[in-house]
């Protein structure tokens, strides 16, 4: 078993007492891989200025290997993979992925049922694509402001703070998963409960949307402390 030593990188030493724990096996000059096929099928003239610069930079720099969760097929979606990873327990990716597949199947079945029962004029408004439903439901669950605890003068206040995109997505997914794990009946399985929550979130109802509104109301109530934020 050989341990290659020359390919290890850690950031340059900082002259104060900081422990460097975060390091990567890649040199910092390595760039992230781009798996989307459409970008490569565009011809040279169609690219914008920024993209041309990026392509020129990529031609000179080495590129990291694509992770095993990512693929260029139509079925791989970064949001779905993130959600599957969050649902995973003890590294059991097989189980998490099968649960996700069953959830999407359940969503599709429920929507198809609704579609066949609905009258002719409503048939077009019913969305059957489970990926579209998933994305829309997540978007509806994302909070806009969050609360952050800031200690000033001995007391801790809950200060309303704008959230970054990553944080919003993370909170939406976290709420969905915790909601499904805790508030379900004993016999109900995860895919069924998740599909129920997703459809409710898609129609802007359900406990997760309520949680989001509660958070917004709290932020509105604590508006007075907004000036405590310094970033």
């Amino acid at each position, binding site marked *: 078993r050989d341990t290659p030593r020359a390919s290890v990188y850690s950031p340059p030493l900082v002259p104060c007492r900081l422990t460097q724990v975060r390091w990567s096996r890649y040199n910092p000059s390595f760039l992230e891989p781009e798996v989307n096929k459409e970008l490569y099928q565009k011809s040279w003239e169609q690219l914008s200025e920024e993209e041309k610069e990026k392509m020129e930079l990529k031609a000179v720099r080495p590129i990291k290997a694509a992770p095993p969760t990512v693929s260029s*097929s139509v079925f791989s979606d970064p949001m779905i993979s993130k959600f599957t990873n969050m649902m995973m327990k003890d590294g059991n990716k097989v189980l998490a992925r099968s649960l996700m597949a069953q959830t999407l199947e359940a969503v599709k079945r429920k929507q198809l049922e609704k579609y066949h029962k609905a009258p002719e004029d409503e048939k077009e408004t019913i969305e059957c694509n489970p990926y579209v439903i998933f994305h829309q439901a997540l978007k509806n669950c994302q909070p806009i402001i969050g609360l952050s605890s800031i200690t000033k003068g001995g007391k801790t206040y809950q200060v309303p703070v704008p959230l970054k995109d990553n944080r919003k997505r993370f909170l939406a997914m976290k709420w969905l998963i915790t909601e499904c794990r805790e508030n379900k009946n004993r016999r109900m399985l995860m895919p069924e409960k998740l599909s129920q929550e997703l459809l409710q979130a898609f129609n802007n109802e359900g406990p997760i949307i309520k949680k989001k509104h509660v958070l917004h109301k709290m932020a509105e109530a604590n508006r007075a402390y907004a000036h405590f934020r310094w970033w």
Partner: protein
Amino acid sequence: TLRLIYTTTAVRRKNVGASGPEKYTEAFIKKQIEEFNLGKRHLANMMGEDPETFTQEDIDRAIAYLFPSGLFDKQARPMMKHPTEIFPEQRKIQWGEDGRPFHFLFYTGKQSYYSLMHETYEKLLNAQKYQDQLTAQDLSPQKEKKNLAGNRWLTKIELEEMLLEKLSDVDYSRFIQLLQKLLTLPCGDIEEKYIQKFCKEVPAQLKKVVIEPLKYDERGVAFSTGEGTRKTARATAVVYDNGTGKITVNGIDILHYFPVLQDREQLLFPFQFLDRIGKHDMVCTVSGGGRSAQAGAIRLASAKALRSFVTEQEVEFMRQAGLLTVDPRVKERKKPGQEGARRKFTWKKR
């Protein structure tokens, strides 16, 4: 506490040129050069070659033949090289006989660094003056965008070798910032010659790898082989042309060998990326590693094999999609005093 993890031979190598004033006099080095040339002719005579056309490679081969050594460190083996490579360039003594230093910035401690900064700033001021002259005459300065992607700045070690003086990280970053400011000025083109002293060409990544030509087997079908590794798994793949899209691993069909969907997706990734799913057949052998590592190894092997079937532009696209890089991530070792690689033992207050 700091933990130094990143070391390469370049970092560990002592910058002898910057350590201090010269330990070898000029006369000594001249004598060494004469002795080297004489010894080269003797060696050529001994080996039966022509002394006039005896290159450095021939010297290395002759020495390796006459003095075979099994030592691991290449620097410890017997070698015969030109004295300028063995005795590194060092700074001459900076002061005259009366003790007075030659350079006016000697007492700053880093005379070559500060004189370099002064020169660069002078060029900057020149460029600004030129720009002011142009605006005074109402002529707009021409801005041609230089392609910056093909060049890189000198690294800190290379700059130290150039200046024969030790630099700190802060000094180096300030110098690079000055150079970048000079580049962004519209009239920076005048100073191009000066800037090119501190630039180095970076060749395109694609040209470093040689693509093998296609081979033909007995039936006349074109095929090519590739090897791939991931963690502890080693795989070899043979991709045949004019196929139906059948993939066999260790004699077993992929549907039986990889029951998990994610692994099969990884196997088909290179073919799907190039839109050649039903056109090739693949036979692979894989050993070692776990389920996911074997899939990753086969993916790399098949991508490498497909390079021979595909145009250069598509190979570049494959590289940019991350299909052709070996994944260097391996399992981190367990450290003593901790339970795992990162997990520490439970902390008990008493």
